């Protein structure tokens, strides 16, 4: 446990020294969600309908913006190689990095989303479901995204390639995350969607770090 916490602490410390990176992703989330009403029109019933989807797509894109940061800096200065040859299993260090990434990229989105939901005229209970869905979904995005980040480490055209690799894999999270809020709004209850989201999260927690570690070792060869 403590290596994981040590890595989380380290990454958070490094992010605190360069807060702008975190904040830009957050502002991206805010701005993108504001773009949709501007593009589509201010009518409240329409906005309420598109709100879950828009918020989720924006969260997806904002998470993706931050994925490159996960390993790039450590790879550039050689820290990643040190991590790979250290006695601590690389998997644990990877879990720590993913955790730190979520705390920095995912959690702020979860906290800001209710405010943005109000822009779309969502009621309080829907906002609650949204928060829970994002709470389950953003770690899932960080986990899946970490695989893509490790695969595209140091590769030409990394950012766009990362999007192409990772966005198709995000789609189930998007479907169930946005679907949860919509189901709640339409009265069907979000339980099923949230359970499936939680199930995907559980699977990802077990399998994604292994895939990411394998990808990192390949990148470090």
């Amino acid at each position, binding site marked *: 446990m403590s290596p994981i916490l040590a890595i989380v602490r380290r990454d958070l410390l490094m992010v605190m020294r360069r807060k702008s990176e975190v904040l830009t992703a957050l502002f991206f989330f805010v701005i993108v969600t504001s773009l949709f009403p501007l593009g589509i029109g201010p009518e409240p019933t329409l906005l309420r309908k598109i709100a879950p989807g828009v918020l989720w797509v924006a969260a997806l894109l904002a998470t993706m913006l931050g994925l490159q940061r996960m390993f790039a800096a450590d790879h550039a200065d050689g820290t990643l190689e040190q991590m790979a040859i250290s006695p601590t299993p690389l998997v644990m260090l990877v879990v720590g990095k993913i955790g730190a990434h979520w705390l920095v990229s995912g959690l702020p989105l979860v906290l800001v989303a209710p405010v943005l939901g109000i822009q779309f005229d969502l009621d309080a209970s829907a906002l609650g479901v949204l928060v829970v869905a994002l709470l389950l979904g953003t770690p899932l995005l960080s986990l899946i995204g970490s695989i893509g980040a490790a695969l595209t480490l140091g590769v030409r055209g990394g950012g766009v390639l990362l999007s192409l690799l990772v966005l198709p894999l995000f789609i189930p999270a998007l479907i*169930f995350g946005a679907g949860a809020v919509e189901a709640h709004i339409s009265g069907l209850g979000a339980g099923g969607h949230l359970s499936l989201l939680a199930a995907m999260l559980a699977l990802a927690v077990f399998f994604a770090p292994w895939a990411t570690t394998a990808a990192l070792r*390949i990148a470090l060869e």
Partner: protein
Amino acid sequence: MSNRLINWFRFASPHNFYPLAGKMIPVFWALAALFGIAGLWMGFFVAPTDAQQGEGYRIIFVHVPASWLSMFIYMVMATWSAIGLSLNARLSSMMAQALAPTGALMAFLSLWTGAFWGKPMWGTWWVWDARLTSELILFFLYLGFMALQASIDDPRRADKAGAIVALVGAVNVPIIYFSVKWWNTLHQGSSVNLAKSSMAVTMLWGMLLMALCMWMYSVAIALTRVRTIILEREAHTEWVLQLDEVKA
């Protein structure tokens, strides 16, 4: 070991596989032509007109085979990738590399023919039908695999990275399919009944024969492409430089 037993593992070397593939290719083209002619004949001249969809339904004779192939090729590609990654066998990874463009093409054909079928039947070129949407995502997975391999210079790293993408994708394909299916039924999209209620035997046979045709075609193409890939990647070896087509 008796002289009559073949050591199959010798074909794991690109040097030995190259001529074997060369001999196999015409066989698969011949099979593809045979199945194709049989399938087209069944599809156009034997299978009757559909009661609901008229002649337009005949598109299934290319749409369904293309879809089946796109999924099958992905699984085969993932398998070869897994073998290449776990056994460190570069020919297996080359085979995966050779299969990807054909699989992507099949996915594209599935989407194209699906759209051309959708227009007369459902009124629009694109419908967010669960299967078409999953097919679109599969197409993106193929593109991701190919793009990643194209952007990594070191071929062995590209092989292994591509293997991870293919395997993660393979695990995700069922998840994606079921989530899209759920999403589609929830949103009460156009309730599509792809004429599966009572398919005439001749229609089924036509589909199967065309599927076999496309399968044989894909094998032939993949073997041809893998030969090219072998030459490209083994350019520094003695046996390549001694090939008749290459010798100075």
